[in-house]
């Protein structure tokens, strides 16, 4: 391969570094007017009345909307369509949009929002998942799994008790992973432009234009064909722009009403309220180990603080359990999960979606197991790796598994065998691993259509236009798409023109989430390009008098492999083909393979294949202060094959950065005032200064190893890299701190006072640990028992009808099965 695998410059790089890229907020067509939102100042309250008249009389005001103007609910998952563009009847968190004001200028809209008066009747508030399960009334929503529980899950794969009976050692751990947010540099912006014939185009910083398209059609009650959604290049997404947001619907509605472009750009504070970030999760993990470190059974319990709305939360709940099985042999497994509603901004998918929390629990737990069993943590893991191509206890089909090579690479690079456990007091090494999806196996709404499509048009001048719904969010997906097409057709990147993320012009791609784009859009592009090459080869072969099979496409030419000078330019080949066939266009599409699980809930977790990562982190801890510094991170990632190693490295380093932020300092924290004085429950610090995220000065040296073992399911062998490398970082930090000072911090972020608390306990002869003590009493609902492949199961639960997830439940709503 000429291009794929080389560190070529990203196709949007020059535009980005010279300021030419047009993000949503850069678009301001003539006659644009501006929207600002009035947001709830109460965490939970009935809306008694809204007085809009003073705002309507303010200078420049063109229109004012409330929830009653947009009465149809929506939500990213069909099972939890619980949101309105503007709150109706009730508000559920501070920061929830209540009123939209459009004016000639942003300043006028801003001033007018200050004139809106909302009369609220406060309701009791719920601040945590523990509080939610203990407080069924008042309910935040009138749907869900009863009280303030959104979702309960209980799945048992295999005979757990038999597994624990086989164990030599049983370990139990309680831990907590706090919530945090995505913090993309670009604040969400959306511009809606009315078109002829009652049509509207929405330009938005969204990762999921297709889902926004569907929601707009539903809420605005318009035929989808009249709506076009263009996802502008995102200035970072990380999952925070994967939901449909009320402000997108508001500007589309106002553009249609006012007949002029309508724009909104959120403030940084508003982005904190959009949230959809990492769920705070309490976890309890119980695992049986044999003396050799092999696992006999594992029981994981998770309790998720979901915030005020559903978002992706049902999927997030399943994801806190689904991927525990894909790294090491785990023959019997039980997962209990519960997501609660609370009066805080909704949680949702953030890089790693639901998996970094249980991965933290598991990898710290393994470190403790290694100590308890007198084994080296790296050796323990290497000895019990999940085998490639296996079907796990919870019926996930694995692809290639590069985890062993990842561990070997970081163990070698960090001098682990020589240095682990032997560094001077205060300095330590920690090892942890992780795994992630390469695209969710199922779409979020039930259909059998492709999850990604690509169309290629060939120009007789030799240019190639590639159309695909995929969305560039900074991860480099445009470059991947262009490189795959250029590689197959043997042309340069400069000959490829992209048209992406436009529901009016491009074939559907479900969006930039679940690390699906390289694999899914990449495979669709590969198919479309190979079809184009076949047409060109046929025509060129005829013209050259050669067997099409013998032709090579490279260097902008089509030529005989045996006689390279005998050939055509690429443009001549197009002319030959167009002369014979008429206008040239091909398509490609991708549908993931069907996963073997058939039980209810089997839809979350399957992926065409999985990526793997391992990291060793070196830390220096000051026992006088508890302050610590991460000195070095060695990380290896099994990417299958790099389409562009520079971009892969960027994703790995970005994941390390984000993982360190979560592990060291980031917290979506809230303040509740004394309840006798105030009903307030507010985000503690919705600003980039006070929400602490590392800067580049806080970044350690990173040594990255790319493990390349091409997976036939990926395009040219490629797997994901955008999310997986985050996973090992938080547990590697906790494990390194243990190696440095002997303190176990079973929660993240790890603040210095926690280390001092554990050291103080150590000095008193107590367990040197900081973390939650006991898991609350939780009713996870009836347990679905699913025999494992090893037990001769067929993928179904005991007592479940043969329809499995393919059936529609009596409610008429499809069962959950998406990512």
């Amino acid at each position: 391969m000429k291009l794929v695998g080389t560190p070529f410059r990203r196709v949007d790089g020059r535009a980005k570094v010279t300021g030419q890229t047009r993000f949503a907020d850069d678009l301001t067509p003539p006659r644009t007017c501006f929207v600002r939102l009035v947001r709830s100042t109460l965490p939970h309250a009935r809306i008694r009345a809204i007085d809009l008249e003073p705002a309507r009389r303010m200078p420049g005001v063109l229109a004012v909307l409330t929830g009653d103007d947009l009465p149809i609910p929506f939500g990213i998952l069909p099972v939890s369509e619980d949101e309105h563009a503007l709150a109706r009847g009730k508000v559920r968190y501070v920061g929830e949009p209540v009123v939209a004001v459009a004016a000639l200028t942003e300043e006028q809209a801003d001033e007018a929002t200050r004139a809106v008066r909302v009369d609220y009747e406060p309701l009791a508030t719920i601040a945590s998942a523990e509080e939610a399960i203990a407080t069924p009334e008042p309910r935040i929503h009138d749907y869900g799994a009863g009280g303030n529980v959104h979702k309960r899950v209980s799945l048992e794969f295999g005979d757990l008790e038999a597994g624990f009976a086989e164990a030599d050692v049983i370990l139990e751990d309680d831990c907590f992973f706090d919530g945090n947010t995505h913090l993309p540099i670009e604040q969400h912006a959306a511009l809606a432009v009315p078109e002829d014939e009652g049509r509207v185009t929405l330009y938005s910083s969204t990762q999921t234009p297709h889902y926004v398209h569907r929601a707009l059609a539903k809420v605005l009650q318009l035929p989808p064909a009249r709506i076009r959604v263009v996802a502008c290049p995102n200035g970072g997404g990380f999952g925070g722009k994967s939901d449909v947001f009320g402000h997108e619907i508001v500007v589309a509605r106002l553009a249609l009403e006012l007949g002029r472009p309508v724009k909104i750009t959120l403030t940084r504070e508003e982005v904190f309220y959009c949230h959809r970030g990492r769920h705070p999760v309490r976890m309890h993990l119980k695992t049986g180990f044999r003396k050799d470190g092999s696992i006999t059974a594992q029981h994981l319990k998770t309790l998720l603080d979901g915030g005020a709305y559903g978002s992706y939360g049902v999927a997030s709940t399943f994801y806190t359990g689904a991927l525990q099985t894909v790294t090491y042999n785990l023959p019997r497994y039980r997962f209990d999960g519960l997501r609660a509603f609370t009066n805080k901004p909704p949680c949702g998918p953030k890089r790693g979606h639901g998996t970094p929390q249980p991965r933290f629990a598991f990898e710290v737990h393994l470190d403790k197991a290694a100590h308890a069993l007198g084994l080296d943590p790296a050796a323990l893991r290497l000895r019990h790796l999940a085998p490639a191509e296996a079907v796990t206890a919870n019926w996930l089909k694995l692809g290639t598994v590069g985890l062993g090579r990842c561990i070997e690479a970081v163990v070698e690079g960090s001098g682990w065998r020589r240095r682990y456990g032997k560094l001077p007091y205060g300095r330590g090494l920690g090892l942890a691993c992780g795994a992630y999806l390469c695209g969710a196996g199922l779409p979020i709404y039930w259909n059998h259509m492709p999850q990604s499509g690509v169309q290629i048009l060939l120009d007789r001048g030799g240019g190639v236009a590639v159309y695909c719904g995929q969305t560039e969010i900074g991860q480099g997906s445009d470059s991947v798409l262009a490189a795959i097409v250029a590689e197959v057709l043997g042309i340069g990147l400069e000959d490829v023109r992209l048209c992406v993320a436009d529901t009016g012009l491009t074939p559907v791609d479900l969006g930039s989430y679940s690390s699906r784009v390289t694999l899914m859009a990449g495979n669709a592009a590969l198919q479309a390009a190979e079809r184009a090459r076949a047409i060109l080869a046929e025509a060129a072969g005829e013209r050259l008098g050669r067997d099409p099979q013998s032709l090579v496409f490279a260097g902008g030419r089509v030529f005989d492999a045996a006689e390279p000078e005998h050939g055509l330019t690429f443009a001549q080949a197009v002319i030959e083909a167009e002369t014979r066939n008429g206008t040239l266009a091909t398509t490609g599409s991708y549908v993931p393979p069907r996963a073997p699980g058939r039980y209810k809930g089997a839809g979350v977790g399957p992926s065409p294949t999985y990526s793997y990562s391992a990291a060793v982190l070196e830390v220096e801890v000051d026992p006088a202060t508890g302050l610590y510094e991460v000195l070095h991170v060695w990380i290896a990632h099994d990417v299958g094959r790099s389409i562009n190693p520079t971009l892969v490295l960027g994703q790995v380093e970005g994941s390390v950065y984000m993982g360190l932020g979560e592990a060291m300092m980031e917290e979506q924290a809230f303040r509740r005032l004394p309840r006798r004085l105030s009903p307030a429950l507010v985000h503690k610090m919705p600003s980039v200064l006070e929400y602490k995220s590392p800067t580049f000065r806080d970044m350690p040296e990173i040594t990255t190893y790319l493990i390349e073992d091409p997976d036939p399911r990926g395009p040219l062998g490629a797997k994901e890299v955008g999310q997986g490398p985050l996973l090992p970082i938080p547990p590697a930090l906790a494990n390194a701190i243990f190696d440095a000072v002997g303190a176990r911090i079973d929660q993240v972020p790890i603040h210095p006072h926690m280390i001092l608390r554990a050291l103080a306990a150590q000095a008193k002869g107590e367990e040197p640990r900081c973390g939650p003590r006991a898991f609350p009493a939780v009713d996870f609902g009836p347990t679905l028992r699913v025999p494992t492949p090893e037990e001769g199961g067929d993928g179904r639960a005991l007592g479940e009808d043969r329809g499995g997830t393919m059936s529609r439940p009596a409610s008429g709503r499809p069962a959950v099965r998406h990512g």
Partner: protein
Amino acid sequence: MLRLPPFDFRAPRRLAEAAAILAGEGDGARVVAGGTDLWPNMKRRHQHATTVVSLMGIPELAAVDDGGGELRLGATATLAQVAASDAVRRRYPALACAVRSISSPPLRNMGTLGGNLCLDTRCTYYNQTEPWRRAIDFCMKEAGTVCWVAPSSPRCWAHAASDAAPMLCALGARVLLRAHDGERVVPLEELYRDDGIDYLNKRREEILCAVLLPAEAAVEHCAGSFWKLRRRGAIDFAVVSAAAAAWFDAGGAVERLRLVLGAVASRPLRVVAAEELLAGRRLDEEAVAEAARLARKAATPMDNTDFQAQWRGLMVERYAAAALRQAAGLEPGIRPPHHPL
């Protein structure tokens, strides 16, 4: 983005003119220099002004004059200029260190020394937008009645946030204040009040014009040190800082010493008990430890900034000790923070 409310902007070229505007405009007038504090505060609507008077067009306010004796630093000299100034680096290196630790390079390029000394007190219940503050029904410092940091408290607990102030107080700096009706020179220390709301002993129409550093505080006579704790070395405000300035007698005992804490009270906090304890003593480990304990006792870190308040209390002890040790030429005893010292 957050938008500024409308106001009149004045940019006089002469100090007398600025003083006259301030005298004439009444309570709605405010002074701005670099704007790194005032503009965000006005955007969040917790500081208000109908007229803003910029000092940046007045050349005499920006000058740094080093006659070899007292060093005069103009109030609108930027923090970057102060940190890079030859005289400051050579004669008052601890001040250069403190100023270099303020925020980030872009903000040091805009922010001024005078602005840093007059920095509004900070609190996580206060440095928020107007809708956020409405959600807590505001607070005592602005538009409300309760101090949410300590709801039964009759006073506001917003904390002092300047890094230059504790160091300059330790070095015994004085400031020149000028109004339409005259001028005065006061010890910087006396500029501050231990009140989160009325934190400056300064009439509204007085302009802070210059900082005067005594020759006796220069490095050949005085050992200065500054230690600052914050989450991120690239930008954050201090959550604890400790500035020390020590004069030793010929025998190596402390003749005189000032220890001033930042971010743990509504004003730069002199730890007089520690100063008295150390006078006449050698700065050995035992003396340092005793003094650091007194520093911790004097401080009142509250839950209104980053990090856990109780832990910050312990850090007062650790950072005060580090500052004293450094002044005595001992190892600091804690791992140095990320920023250059």
